[in-house]
């Protein structure tokens, strides 16, 4: 994944504020996509690459908070920065609980907004990187034979070769061969690494 410009998705029903945010984000080298409502956003094709959402909490139709709570269900995993005309505690709590990166009260300081957006984008990048690593792991795991997967699971559970051989009614030698193959296919450099991979895969 290259360092392509991250995209900030702005959803606000006020065209003037959309334009201002557009200019602000572009001045710092971010790409922007502007939407007047959540419906507009959902109807648009998804952008490639890392990004985040800047959403006004009060929107016609689906409100910002409801929208945020529904995002996961809609298969959108962009981090969300919330804006509101005047902050109120219950809303902030609800927003943060639902996983908002930040909560800004209008009018906000530009640096606060940019920081929040940067943090959100960083979080998205991390998530994307983690997701990328897991995908690779899964691909490697898919190359394992069923016996190798069994051996790997028991190794990760902390069992000795002899115990594994007993459990699977195999010879200790065969277990060693399967364990070596699994280590090789999973590109694990140490036993500890294999255990972490197994945990990550949830196997």
């Amino acid at each position, binding site marked *: 994944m290259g360092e392509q410009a991250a995209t900030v998705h702005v959803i606000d029903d*006020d065209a003037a*504020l959309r334009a*201002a945010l557009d*200019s602000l984000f572009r*001045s710092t080298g971010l790409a922007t996509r502007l939407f007047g409502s959540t419906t507009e956003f959902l109807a648009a094709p998804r952008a490639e690459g890392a990004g985040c959402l800047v959403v006004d909490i009060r929107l016609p139709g689906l409100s910002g908070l409801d929208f945020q709570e529904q995002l996961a269900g809609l298969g959108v995993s962009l981090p969300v920065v919330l804006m509101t005309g*005047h902050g109120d505690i219950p809303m902030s709590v609800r927003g943060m609980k639902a996983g908002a990166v930040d909560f800004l009260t209008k009018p*906000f300081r530009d640096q606060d907004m940019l920081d929040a957006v940067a943090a959100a984008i960083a979080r998205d990048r991390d998530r994307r990187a983690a997701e990328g690593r897991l995908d690779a792991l899964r691909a490697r795991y898919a190359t394992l034979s069923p016996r190798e997967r069994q051996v790997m699971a028991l190794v990760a559970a902390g069992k000795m070769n002899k115990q594994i051989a007993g459990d699977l009614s195999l010879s200790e030698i065969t277990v060693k061969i399967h364990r070596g193959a699994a280590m090789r296919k999973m590109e694990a450099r140490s036993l500890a690494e294999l255990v972490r991979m197994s945990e990550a895969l949830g196997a």
Partner: protein
Amino acid sequence: MDAVLLGRAKRIAAVWALGAIGLSGAAWACLALGLHFAAAAFVFLVAVICLALLDGLRSSLAFVAAAALCLLYFFIPPYRSFAAAAKEDMAALAAFVLASGLIVALVHRLRSLTDAHREQARMLAQAEAAYLAEAQRLSGAGSFGWNLDKNEFVWSDECARIFEAKQGPRPGIDFIAGRIHPDDAGAFQALVTKTRAERAPFEFETRLLLPGDKVKHVHVVARPLPDAPAQFVGALMDVTDRKAAADALRRSEYRYRNLFQAMAASFWELDFSGVGKIVGKVRAAGVKDLVAHFAAHPDLVREMMRETRVLDVNDETVSLFFGGDRGKVTGSVEPFWPEASNHVYAASVVAAITRKPSYAAECRLKTLDGREIDALFTACFAPETVAAGKLLIGVIDVTERVRAQAALERVRAEFAHAARVSMLGELTASIAHEVNQPLAAIAANAAAGQRWLDRPEPDLVEVRAVIDRIIADGARAGAIIARVRAMATQKPPEHGPLEINVAIGEALSFLRHELQTHGVEAVAELAPELPRVRADRTQIHQVVVNLVVNAMQAMAAAPAPRRIRVSSVRAGDGVEIAVEDSGPGISAAHKARLFESFFTTKPGGMGMGLPICRSIVEAHGGRIDVQDRPEGGARFRVTLPIAQRDAHT
């Protein structure tokens, strides 16, 4: 026909019998006396002439022939024979026949002439009687004769018709007395007694009471004939209609005199013939647009006022304008017109010239002691009075009404203001949000501008766009604050031409935040290119905000989607604004009281919102009402009149 013939035959038979007797008698008498031919011929001639008086020419000639034969037989020798006699006797007989024939013919000629003359006279008399009867019927006047000595009373058919009597020409004085109205009977008897005693000409009016309780008024004149003082002739006329008309006229005159004098309005009778001369001169000079000409020449208007002379005024005018002193009622109307009311005077003159039936306007007038009053000025241009150069003016003092109206207007404005301020309080959050929005945009724009400038290569195109947006956002924030200030401050309403769609949009911007908080969506469906309405912007904001807040609150308990539809549409001479909600609607019991003050269905509600809306709308010359939506919910409808300048679009 047979009867006539029979009568004629009988008559002829009688004449001939008489002729036979007469001639035989003559013959016998002459023979008895022993008269000779000449004397007998004379006797026969007399008899024939006498007979000729009785009947037609033919019978008479027959008698002549018979007489000649008698003479020949009895008196010409040879006697008792028709045999021819001496020549001289025959000549005498022929002379007798010729003479008696001529005389008989003459007698008949005379008789027929007399008959024709008599017939003519009879027809003439008949025609005259018919003409007289017809003339009497037409004029409603009958004639009568009254002989005091014989106490005989004779009247014409028309008299009988007036009395509705079936009696012939001699009704009898008692019948007449019976038809006199009981209330007038005494006077009638007195007149009869007096006339009998003095035999003087009389003239009187009395009422008749006819069958069916019908009352008639009759006018009677009579006088004695010059050569027969006991014989009165007279005329009797039915004057019921004339009397009714005269009474009506008198009552009407009395009523109008009463109206003129006693009404609590000031009336003036004016002589404006001098004004007509001035206008005539102006027109002769080629002026077409009198209104503009008068407006441009106030001196001319004042001159016309000076030429408008006061003829008469009523009591109210004296007390209102002349300080109660009727002695001061004189001169022109000029002192009563302040300069500021010149245009009203000029307009009334133009109305009179253009033959309008009347003119009315409200204006200020001055009293003699210098007080100014608000007056309703009306002028009536009845063609009869205008032709005589006269004019009737009515003035009603409406000072108190104007003052009360102004006071009411002030109270209403104060009330509306109080309601606006309280509404602003409720909408603080929404307004703050609305102001915040452009402020946030300005801050973000400014920050962006800085960053564009701080770049290694400053992007001036972006900076310019940023500044443009800052200016626009600043203006927007300013406009919102101006609107809030207009709501908060009290100023007299300005009824200027207003783009209603713009005003609706502004009102909704007050409420955007509020609507979102309540989860209500407001949909504006505004007809494009509407004519402008004559309205005060702030007050229209107030009405729309009020109606939308009401709709929002009505839907508080309704299930989503909660939607308010705000629409505008052209409706006849006005523009109709509707605010519709999908709430529970308004019960019939509430609907009737909805616009009453202090009526509310909301806990903590004041019940002033809709009454104030109504008072605002009505002060704009508009209407407000509420209907049920067929699909549920309420629909408030406000109609405002189109501004005069846009009325034609």
